[in-house]
């Protein structure tokens, strides 16, 4: 069942279009991560869901009904921020109980629910502590408890872990994930950290410049990024241009076979990509299809692996080589692009040219 629907929502700030014609349905009990660099419109989208700002156009629906005319305090979309987490003049119990007090829940019931939720976030017995007497991680748990205790229709987390140190962040990710699943709460998580999005979310919604780029399960962004920009955001800058004919891409360094089911794109000029960790270094045992020559330009030992940079034709590629791999700069090696890991991406530069209208094909050579 769809819990939250965003229908063609846009938001303009003066001349700046912060969010452009965004469409997304979020299922009940689902955890969706809005991912993108800062300023991409993900937080603006979150605030439109809460009602803290209104969309310039479009509609926001909760359970199939428009909530645009419902003020924030009656929407049941509860936010958790990264800093200024707790009300400083209140103790933990008052903080967690704030939403219940606003909803005029009876004192006995409120006290019971506060106690239960503090158990759930693993903070029993801290009811009377003040905010400044808690560690950063504890404050984060209290903020989470305060949001959960009112049983929100949708829980909105705006980079809630950005201020925590690395170890604590991992613990908190697991906590958020397990509680969200346990309570079956619909949640939206805003982050600029692709690792966090991939670990936490059922689905990732990637945004650049106010435009939703791709929505899907986390692995889709690795297996089948839609564009070169998306691939780059997920740390994959390996691109090879060619001309597609059915399931073959003809490139300057040879023909590359792609999986027959690959539907992204059509025959004609195209770009293919293989993630650094899927590129194989050819040994005697590996099958000899989809093999291309590559020239080593650098090899950096990284401990668990070595980061190998090569050029294929004149295109630089990154490869995760085994830690023990040895080669000298200028060596020509053979690498294999496994058929099932070759994906076709559309080139962002071409897309931009198409959108802006009459960009001459030789523009890049002038620039």
């Amino acid at each position, binding site marked *: 069942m769809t819990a939250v629907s965003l229908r063609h929502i846009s938001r303009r700030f003066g001349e700046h279009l912060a969010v452009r014609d965004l469409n997304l349905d979020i299922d009940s009990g689902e955890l969706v991560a809005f991912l993108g660099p800062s300023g991409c419109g993900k937080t603006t989208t979150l*605030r439109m869901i*809460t009602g*803290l700002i209104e969309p310039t156009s479009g509609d926001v629906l909760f359970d199939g009904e428009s909530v645009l005319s419902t*003020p*924030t*305090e*009656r*929407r049941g*979309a*509860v*936010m*958790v*921020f990264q*800093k*200024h987490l707790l*009300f*400083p*003049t209140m103790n933990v119990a008052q903080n967690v109980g*704030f*939403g219940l007090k*606003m*909803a005029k829940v009876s004192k006995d019931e409120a006290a019971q629910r506060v106690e239960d939720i503090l158990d759930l976030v693993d903070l029993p017995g801290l009811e009377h502590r003040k905010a*400044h007497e808690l560690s950063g991680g504890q404050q984060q748990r209290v*903020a989470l408890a*305060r*949001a959960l205790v*009112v049983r929100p229709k949708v829980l*909105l987390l705006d980079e809630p872990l950005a201020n925590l140190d690395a170890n604590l962040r991992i613990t908190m990710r697991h906590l958020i994930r397990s509680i969200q699943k346990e309570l079956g709460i619909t949640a939206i998580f805003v982050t600029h950290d692709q690792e966090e999005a991939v670990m936490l979310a059922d689905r990732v919604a990637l945004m650049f410049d106010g435009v939703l780029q791709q929505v899907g399960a986390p692995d889709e962004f690795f297996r089948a990024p839609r564009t070169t920009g998306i691939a780059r955001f997920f740390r994959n800058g390996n691109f090879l241009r060619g001309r597609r004919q059915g399931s073959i891409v003809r490139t300057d360094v040879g023909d590359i076979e792609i999986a027959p089911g690959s539907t992204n794109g059509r025959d004609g000029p195209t770009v293919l990509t293989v993630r650094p960790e899927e590129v194989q270094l050819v040994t005697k045992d590996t099958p000899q299809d989809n093999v291309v020559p590559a020239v080593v330009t650098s090899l950096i030992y990284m401990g668990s692996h070595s980061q190998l940079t090569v050029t294929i034709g004149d295109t630089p590629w990154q490869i995760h080589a085994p830690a023990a791999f040895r080669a000298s700069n200028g060596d020509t090696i053979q690498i294999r692009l496994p058929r099932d890991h070759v994906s076709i991406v559309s080139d962002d530069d071409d897309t931009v040219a198409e959108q802006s209208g009459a960009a001459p094909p030789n523009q890049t050579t002038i620039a």
Partner: protein
Amino acid sequence: MSVNPEQRTGLVPRWARWIAVTSIVVFVLVPIGTLVIWSFAFRWNFPNILPTEWGLRAWSYTASDSSRVIEGLWNSTRLALVVTLMAIIVGLPASRALGQHEFRGKTTVEWLLMMPIIVPALVATMGIHQIFIRLRLTETLFGVALVHLIPAIPYFVLVMASVFANYGTALEDTARSLGANRYKVFRYVTFPAISSGLLVASMFTFLISWGQYVTTLLIGGGTFVTLPLVLFPFLSGGNNSTAAAISLVFVAPAIVVLVMTSRQLSRDSALMGGFGKL
């Protein structure tokens, strides 16, 4: 995030603290002590370190109707309270906007707010006087209060804008999303967070109004008599004992305010952040 107070004092060398303490004694306590002695002096001639005769004449004159000190005290007090109230009503929304929102022309507005501090109040008051005569606002408490707002508002807004900027909007947004309407957000979240800053800003405003002389004289036309107006003739008139007694009445609220706000000022350095713009 807050610095451990022990560390903070540790950053100040011992000699610097000695200089600070000595300056306070020399520049604050000695003059006030002298005033106290003068106010009880009956006869105090040059070579003597202390008065040769003591008396309560200065104080009994101060308390009498003919000195107009009681009238001035009453006028100064209600005037300063009205100015403070007006500064809160006008300045609170303005400082919130300046502290928490970005808008076109913000720098211009900040500059305009500084103008009363840069341009002598006398200049502006001369022009305002002409307009107030036409509006029949001269010689009224309300008229004088309006003119006192000119020097008071910049200080009030500077302090409060930095309080608002420091406190941000995330807590209010959180409270809204948890089901609090705008009134409840203000009552349970905003007000407790800004109250200590508001207290300091209000006391500053009170003191600025309390100390006004020229603006009161011009707009009040000598009919609306405040404490500085009562005090001035005695300062130039040569009766040191009476001038000292009235001066003590005049500085009393400032000392009370200083003592009451010193804790807030030393604890919450963000309050003073706004003065960095001066």
